[in-house]
């Protein structure tokens, strides 16, 4: 079984020494080739993190996305978001749009997929991917959506009873010619919006809101991005309860133990509590 001589080297080596894995017969047992049909589930469990943040998440030292948002750490692996948000994260394909490019030999058609992900409790993400095949585009869009998950701030319309249910203030977002304006609504109003932004707002976890849009809302890409932009602005708006000075804490890369200490969590909790 050992091939010396013309192959160079003895047995298992890199380079041209080892085609077909025959030399590895006795170590068999890993079934790597057989995992081809295994499916996605196994791959997710077998995620090997590539970045430091990924390793921290896999160890379990970071349990909420807020810890990542607080320090503006770039999320480069979509499995991070999957691990943290878990099964609550749902995704939906908004539209598959064929786009074409003119070539000498006719038209080259590609498919553009718009995907929205969200957990229904303050986190949404939007992903757009163009690819030659629909399935690839959808898969790529889901991954991009998970990478772009942002927090959504919710507040009250009037009395601060129960959990926050609407946007904290009037916010507006714009993309292209489409502007979307969101206005706080009382409980029970429901999401008063067109079909497209309604989906996004449901994923965000907003229960009641009045919306108003302007521009060419027929262009779904811009419409969806405008609502997403609007939701991103909810945390960018400075309201009076954020007038207190923030106490800066150390990033998870600097010192893990400090992250679990009271001050950091208190800041986020304060915001929620003041709203309540």
């Amino acid at each position, binding site marked *: 079984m*050992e091939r*010396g001589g*013309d*192959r*160079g*080297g*003895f*047995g*298992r*080596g*890199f*380079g*041209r*020494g080892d*085609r077909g*894995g025959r030399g*590895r017969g006795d170590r068999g047992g*890993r079934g*790597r080739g057989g995992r*081809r049909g295994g499916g996605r589930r196994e*791959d997710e469990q*077998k995620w*090997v*993190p*590539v970045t*430091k943040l990924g*390793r*921290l998440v896999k*160890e379990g030292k970071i349990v909420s996305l807020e810890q990542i948002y607080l*320090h503006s750490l*770039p999320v*480069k*692996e979509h499995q991070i978001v999957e691990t943290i948000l878990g099964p609550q994260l749902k995704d939906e394909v908004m539209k*598959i*749009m*064929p*786009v*074409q490019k*003119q070539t000498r030999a006719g038209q080259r058609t590609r*498919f*553009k997929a718009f995907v929205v992900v969200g957990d229904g409790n303050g986190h949404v993400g*939007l992903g*757009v991917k*163009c690819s030659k*095949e*629909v*399935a690839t585009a959808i898969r*790529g869009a889901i*991954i*991009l959506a998970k990478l772009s998950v942002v927090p959504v701030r919710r507040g009250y319309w009037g009395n601060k009873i129960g959990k926050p249910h609407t946007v904290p203030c009037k916010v507006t977002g714009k*993309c292209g010619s489409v502007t979307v304006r969101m206005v706080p609504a009382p409980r029970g109003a429901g999401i008063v919006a067109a079909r497209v932004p309604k989906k996004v707002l449901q994923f965000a976890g907003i229960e009641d809101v009045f919306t108003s849009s302007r521009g060419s809302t027929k*262009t779904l*890409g*811009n419409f969806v*991005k405008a609502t997403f932009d609007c939701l991103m602005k909810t945390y960018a708006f400075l309201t009076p309860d954020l007038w207190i000075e923030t106490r*800066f804490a*150390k990033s998870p*890369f600097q*010192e*893990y133990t400090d992250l679990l200490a009271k001050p950091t969590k208190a800041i986020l909790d304060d915001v929620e509590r003041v709203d309540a």
Partner: protein
Amino acid sequence: MESDLRSLRITSIEKEEEDEEREDFGKEGEQEDDEDDEEEEDEVEVTLGFAEKPKNPCLLLRHLFPSKAGGVPVKKLSFFYSLFIFFILRIVLSSYISLQALFQFQHTQAWLDPVDLPAEKSFTCGFCREPLQFLLQIYAPISDKEYTFHRMLYVFMCPSMSCLLKDQHEQWKRTVENPCRSVKIFRCQLPRSNPFYSSEPPKRNGTDIPTITGAPLCCWCGSWKGDKVCGSCKNARYCSAKHQSLHWRLGHKIECSKILNLSETSASCIVNAKAKVRATKKYASNSLWPEYEIIIEEECTFDSEIPEDNRSITSLAFTSNRIDETYQLLSDKFEADTDKKVWASFQERIAKAPEQVLRYCQDPAAKPLWPLTIGRPSKEDIPRCNYCKGPLCYEFQIMPQLLFYFGVKNDPDSLDWGTIVAYTCLASCDASISYKEEFAWVQLYPTATVA
């Protein structure tokens, strides 16, 4: 008629040979042109390495030419095996002959060429002057040349992140003659008939032993030549003063006196005692990375066929056939900029086999898989071979998954890299010294900005 038949046979054999040749050429032809005009990279065959706990520790000894990561260059577990044997034999019989055989076994060295090990100047980190720590070794023979029948590549690295950051500056310098780096790659090659190993392949059934013993190694790190001896017991060997002081503090102080006491008894017992001491201690360092064997697989075995079921979905999607250029312009914000695209394609490539720790390709046209756009070397940044002044070419790269397997902590000062790419001499020159240094390029992730 018979001549016709014979001629028929001849032509058919010829045809078979032609087919075989074509097939072989197809297998060995490492470049397939991709018909897709988007992806311009040629498909070269990439071999992946996966880290796995070794099933049988004695299969990682040097004369079996292993590829491994972490631990020491091959030596650590041989001690366990020898320890096991030692105790068994002690129970059964205790003759000098058996002990002699054990001595040979215990002295098995890690290095391919066990005699001419790298000098102290080359095995210390250029910045902190500490001896480098063993990262991995791979067995990568080249079949073309006779003197590269056996070929091992060793990668050593300083475990400190601050040294790695300083190293980044060094690797961009082009014209330094002897650069001080914190990542070093050594290449060693031997022809088939050499004074250290037999010319026949090892049988791999537990009966192989190396033919010659080499230089003793440092008993703290197990990696480098131990030419400095402990002053009191004259037994323990070290590669540098730093390791000697570390070992002294962390246990040798007590052991040293024990050995001294034992050596006062009769001479025959010295052999026993020394053997016992050597057998009972493993490599004393507690900061070595855990040991894995590198399993080799081809990347193409992971290309899975995902059935593309376009038809049902495209019927829904084909509502209009307009050329939507406006979308393409406006969607750039959400799709990806170049950096994200590079990262996305990197992720896609490793998603085929997410546990890979090493990518290897011997094809001179191969390009490494870069995770980021920044920090890539241009052609001029890669220097020439130190020994033959010939060009260097990409041979293999180490992936960051290895950090996960090593269990590297995630403090600010702990190691983190994007990828480490090894450029080795294209001609694999055979110069004077045994262990030749090759060029390593480290691409780090940009440090995250703190809020």
